[in-house]
């Protein structure tokens, strides 16, 4: 087995579930209230797909007193990785032809979210300049080729992004960046609500959205293994043995 293959962790990817994303049970409670326990149980078991990303931040609350401009950069570096993840996910789904097979309303949603996430990537890259991290290699493991898996993953991704931005935005020092991050946050929250509506899940689960610490976001994202550790090596320094 090749070295690059060996770096790949063996075993199946761990799927996210609504339960994981809804630690305090607010969503389940809300779903039960709207649809009854059977529906809530069904949704609780629904797999949501997932993602792999590396931690670059400590939990914001612990560092609240020490936030700095450097921290602002790190927060946006992390946010950019998340935007990379989302934009790659929507773009790959379109390129796989999955969006073209959707009913019109859903296709409009998927295309719009893709366009938004690509715009987010572009502007954050510009803002970070040389400090912008390179786009990781993503392997969405079939979640872009199936409409149902795509939808569930999109719900999870948008919810997670909203929870992430809710947590890190108050930790930004620059007021201008706080304002910009809030504008991203509200858009991501609308994405989440739109995704939930199309997935048949109640769009707004609770009267108050709880932030997720970056460490928890990381754990969830890492469990899905969407960031590929299998980086293809397609160029080699060796003499050809072609037929000539």
């Amino acid at each position: 087995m090749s070295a690059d293959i060996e770096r790949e962790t063996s075993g199946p990817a761990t799927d996210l579930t609504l339960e994981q994303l809804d630690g305090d049970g607010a969503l389940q409670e809300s779903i039960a209230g709207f649809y009854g326990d059977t529906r809530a149980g069904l949704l609780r078991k629904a797999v949501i797909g997932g993602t792999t990303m590396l931690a670059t931040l400590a939990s914001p609350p612990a560092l609240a007193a020490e936030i700095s401009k450097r921290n602002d950069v790190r927060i946006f570096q992390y946010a950019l990785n998340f935007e990379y993840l989302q934009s790659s996910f929507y773009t790959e789904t379109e390129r796989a032809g999955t969006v073209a097979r959707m009913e019109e309303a859903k296709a409009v949603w998927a295309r719009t979210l893709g366009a938004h996430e690509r715009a987010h990537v572009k502007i954050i890259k510009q803002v970070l300049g040389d400090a912008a991290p390179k786009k990781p290699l993503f392997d969405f493991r079939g979640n872009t080729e199936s409409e149902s898996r795509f939808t569930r993953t999109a719900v999870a991704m948008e919810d997670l992004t909203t929870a992430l931005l809710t947590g890190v935005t108050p930790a930004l020092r620059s007021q201008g960046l706080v304002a910009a991050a809030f504008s991203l946050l509200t858009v991501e929250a609308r994405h989440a609500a739109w995704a939930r509506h199309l997935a048949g899940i109640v769009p707004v689960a609770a009267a108050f959205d709880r932030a997720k610490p970056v460490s928890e976001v990381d754990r969830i994202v890492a469990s899905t293994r969407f960031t590929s550790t299998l980086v293809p090596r397609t160029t080699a320094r060796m003499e050809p043995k072609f037929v000539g």
Partner: protein
Amino acid sequence: MRTASSRRHLRGATFLRAALVVSAAVGLAVGVPSVFLAGGSGDALEQAASHQEAAFAASNLPEPVAPAFVPGKPKLLRVSSHVKRWAVVRTVVAARVAPHARAPAITELETRTPEGTTNIVLVLGNRVDGAGRLWIRVRLAVLDEPSAGWVPREALGSYGTVTTRLVVDLGSLQATLFRDGQTVFRADVGVGKPAWPTPRGDFYIRNKLKGYASPMYGPVAFGTSARSRVLTDWPAEGFVGIHGTDRPDLLPGRVSHGCIRMRNDDILRLAKLMPVGTPLTIR
């Protein structure tokens, strides 16, 4: 003298008064109890409006903070038939004639090419089988038909995309590279002699080799999924390459053992333009 801020507050108070009057009128019309109707007179309305006005005027809230950046206008993805995808072969897997586990195997895909690079396959389509398993149709580096087969998605890794396509015309002895459907490169080529013909068909670029010291292959060589039908016992499975040459005087012509030769400056130019994963048509 009124400041801009006080003018805004005054405009707000006027609007508020009007809104309260409308609210009261609506309340009356539909019979809904309203705090504004408590006194049952215009005085009560005025008092309520004054109270609200004072509350809003006293707040003296700051203007919104200007965001440090604003994203540009979102752009929908351009749907293009020129975008093709390739995938890494993650695990050794049988490619089958149909998208289900009991379909006959065509060949076994390795994780590495004979050159030691990561094995990749060109993606042609996908389908879900009756058990809900996702299968991907891929181009195969095989001699015989079918030249495409089905593998389970979990055997593949991440996708790469290209918008390029290389066409080698055995009649005109020219290679043309297209990007997004537009010609970006054209060069004379040498192809197989009649005894060792260059195979026709649809293939893809599997890897790029460089940094070697073999003048007959020039400075750069691309590995393709095409294989010689004649030199089947050639080392490393008889694959057809696209490479430079130490005999540019023979080009264009039918001069090779099946490989596609280019002048060295042409292959160096092509190396800057053509990514691995590019579909290749030899016609």
